[in-house]
């Protein structure tokens, strides 16, 4: 019984858990709220593990499928299922949520129950996005997710949080509604909202291009791609640490996931037709945003821009249409989930002590926080793409794939290795090395056991993926090959 409904379980366990956490009430019961949400988050993570162990790597078909009637009026069904790509993202989601709960233990002290409930509800919705196989169901999860994030940024964010959160909401909402129109159009063409049926649907080039652009509006905003990236630095900077982690680690991946689940297989001809545009936008993100990151004075903003540059790598990998590019892009997504999450947590650790995100307020932190500094060193290196860390796998594969298409693509893409190293390490140097910068830094205390727990978890993930990527890539092969085949088959 339970085995057939693992996906429903991992969607609704955190949502109902979130409601339960909310029921603990005001801040008098804050400790109950924290403990309960940790239990729910860990249970959800454990519940996602059978998805990995029970996953059949030999087939590209959807697995753990659930299919029930929902809205007969337009054949929308409650239809769930995962392939290798969604599997990894679901694991990443449930893993990150556990970290978020631990990281908020001390730093969030007002409206604790609401904070944790928002994250748990969002976890369920995000897993829903990655496992929905029905257009309407997908859209419902996709949009519903905005609401908890809107509240998280607005309630627990920094100075300018209201502006940032409304911008975040409206930007993403605007992108998504066009996708809805495209989905309804596809519904009339295919007679159902079944995403897999859309994969086999024949479409003319003109229709394909319009659909591609509608999807692009939704996904490009979420990724975010240049030039619709401007909401991200604002949202990241103002969000509380947990919000930044979820934004960077999971939400950005949804846009990329959308390209894989919708754009490439449903409108392959338009994808080829407009690949030049996508590649150009991706390379601009890699090069130009890389340069922008270099001059940031706010650590969170720097990591936010670095995220945009890294996501440019992901979309580049998708639109060069070869196995290395696709697998590299997906590996980059997962790695970036770990690394950017880790970096935001690191900034959070320092912010909790000094209440500043400005690079100039720090200096010589390594003298006071040696353990923390070594963790952050690892993550900074991974962000720069050092071999042996997870960051290397994706970047290397994408550059390899780009070479097969054009040397110049590869050349432009490879500049990220330079810029990435430059902005990450330069920030690291200014914040952590040198003499103790000021009196406040002199009073810093090293990472607490609680902080060491989540940093260790992430460090293990980053190293494991860098040194032995096989378990990660293995589940992808069949799905990626199938996807590539779909993307290379003309529908005209």
């Amino acid at each position, binding site marked *: 019984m339970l085995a057939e409904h693992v996906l429903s379980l991992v969607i609704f366990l955190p949502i109902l858990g979130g409601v339960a956490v909310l029921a603990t009430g005001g801040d008098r019961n804050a400790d109950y709220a924290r403990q309960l949400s940790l239990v729910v988050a860990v249970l959800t993570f454990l519940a996602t593990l059978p998805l990995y162990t029970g996953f059949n790597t030999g087939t590209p078909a959807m697995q753990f499928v659930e299919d029930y*009637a*929902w*809205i*007969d*009026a*337009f054949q*929308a069904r409650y239809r769930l299922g995962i392939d290798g790509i969604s599997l990894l993202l679901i694991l990443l989601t449930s893993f990150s949520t556990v970290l978020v709960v631990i990281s908020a233990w001390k730093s969030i002290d007002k409206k604790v129950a*609401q904070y944790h409930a928002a994250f748990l509800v969002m976890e369920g919705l995000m897993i829903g996005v990655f496992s929905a196989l029905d257009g*309407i169901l997908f*859209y*419902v*999860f996709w*949009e*519903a997710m*905005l*609401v908890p994030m*809107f*509240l998280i940024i*607005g*309630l627990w964010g920094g100075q300018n*949080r*209201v502006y940032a*959160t*409304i911008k975040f*909401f*409206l930007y993403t*909402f*605007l992108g998504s*509604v*066009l996708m*809805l*129109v495209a989905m*309804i*159009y596809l*519904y*009339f063409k295919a007679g159902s909202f079944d995403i897999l049926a859309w994969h086999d649907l024949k479409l003319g080039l003109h229709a394909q291009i319009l659909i591609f652009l509608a999807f692009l509006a939704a996904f490009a905003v979420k990724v975010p791609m240049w030039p619709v990236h401007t909401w991200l630095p604002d949202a990241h900077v103002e969000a509380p640490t947990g919000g930044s982690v979820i934004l960077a680690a999971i939400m950005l991946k949804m846009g990329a996931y959308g390209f894989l689940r919708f754009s490439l297989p449903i409108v392959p001809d338009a994808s080829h037709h407009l690949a030049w545009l996508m590649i150009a936008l991706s390379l601009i993100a890699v090069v130009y945003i890389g340069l922008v990151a270099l001059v940031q004075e706010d650590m969170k903003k720097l990591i936010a821009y670095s995220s945009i540059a890294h996501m440019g790598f992901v979309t580049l990998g998708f639109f060069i249409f070869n196995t290395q590019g696709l697998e590299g892009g997906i590996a980059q997504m997962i790695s970036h989930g770990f690394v950017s999450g880790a970096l935001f947590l690191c900034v959070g650790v320092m912010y909790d002590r000094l209440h500043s995100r400005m690079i100039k307020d720090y200096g010589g932190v390594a003298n006071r926080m040696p353990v923390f500094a070594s963790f952050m060193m690892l993550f900074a290196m991974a962000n720069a793409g050092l071999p042996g860390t997870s960051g290397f796998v994706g970047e290397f594969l994408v550059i390899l794939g780009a070479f097969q298409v054009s040397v110049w693509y590869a050349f432009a893409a490879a500049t990220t290795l330079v810029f990435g190293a430059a902005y990450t390490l330069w920030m690291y140097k200014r914040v952590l090395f040198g003499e103790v910068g000021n009196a406040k830094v002199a009073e810093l205390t090293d990472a607490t056991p609680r902080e060491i727990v989540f940093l260790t978890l992430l460090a293990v993930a980053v190293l494991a993926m860098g040194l032995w990527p096989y378990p990660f890539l293995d589940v992808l092969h069949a799905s990626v090959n199938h996807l590539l085949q779909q993307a290379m088959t003309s529908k005209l």
Partner: protein
Amino acid sequence: MKFVIPEMMPAAPEIFVFSMACAILVLDLFLSDRRRAVSYWLAQATLAGAVLLTLKVMTAAPVFTFNGMFVADRLADFLKLGTYGITFFVFTYSRDYLRDRGMFRGEYFVLGLLGVVGMMIMASASHFLTLYLGLELLSLSLYAMIAFQRDSAVATEAAMKYFVLGAIASGMLLYGMSMLYGVTGSLDIPTVSRAIGKMSADNIILIFGLVFVISGLAFKMGAVPFHMWVPDVYHGAPTAVALYIGTAPKLAGFALFLRLLVGGLEPLAGSWQAMLIIIALLSMAVGNIVAIAQDNIKRMLAYSSISHMGFFLLGILSAGANGYGSSLFYILVYAIMSAGSFGMIILLSRAGFEAERLEDFKGLNQRSPWHAFLMMLLMLSMAGVPPTAGFYAKLLVIQSVIQADMIWLAVAAVLLAVIGAYYYLRVIKLMYFDDATERAPIRAGWDVQALLGFNALLLVGVLPWVGVIMELCRQAIKTLS
């Protein structure tokens, strides 16, 4: 000459509600102020009785009576049941508000019930005159209700404006009907439809009459460019009355559109479609954009209602059974959302204090997280954010527009919906992100609390059954054609 007594049974609910309204009116004279609650409970009991009666006389096939002037079909039954339900909510929310302001008089409920009779007659009309009769009964009750607070200058002004403009609109509607009568020789809706079917669709007098009919309809629904009364009336009327105006009469307005345009003038669909496209687009644009500039929440809801009427028209103008069904679903969801939102305003108001300004919602999350949550659901649903019912309503009408091959209109509609999302978000922002300026606890009777919670939660709780309700809406439309 033979005198035939018409079959009364299909109209039993109307007769019942009307008789009860008269009975309450008389009874209320003999009640002391302390016993006034009796009128209230009788009014609620009347609604409950009407539900039972309607369920009892409901038949699968349409039944005509009074020489074909009155019809009891699925659509009428559906709308009547919806009207009773919504009015039940309205009366419950209003009670304390009226009592606190010395307006707890039997007339409110009597007029309310007479308005309900008007709406029921509109739902069941099969003749232009019946339709007009129902409409006027409703309108006259509304005029009186708006002016109910005699010593309020704003309310009197609103009533006056509404009365004058409403009379002009009724005149236009009648004028249009008379044109149609001149061309077709009948006021009976099915006969008119048959007659028009035999004529050429660009008959100049027909189109002329149609323009007037549409203007009258657009006015009654409060669609641009006939919307000017809406903000003034919502703003000026006592909140309990604005609540009444903003909910059930919209359902009756749907009946008006369906009986007239679809029942009578469907052969002219090509012409009214074009007119409605303009009205719908303008309503969505003006409603959503002007709402941003409001700082009075009742005015904001008025403009929001204008934009919702635009969305509602999208379903009608796609001119297909599917589209009408979506519009019915939309208007039903809208009535529920609107009832909840006004209910919330009433809840925050106390004796001597009207929670009318947007600022009054500041920091509601600190004062009462539960009520802030309910209001957030209502606002999200108004904005059409999943998983609330408002999203499915928008989804349905947009789907019917795309089905009618007007993708550009669908794109325009969703973009305007995004603009609209801003001012709903602003309410959420005030409730959650701002500090409370007001610390008074929120007090209300258990029945109001429970009903309001039910009302708002309905918008998400309905999720698994949303398909069933859509199906009911479609069934209701089916018997029409």
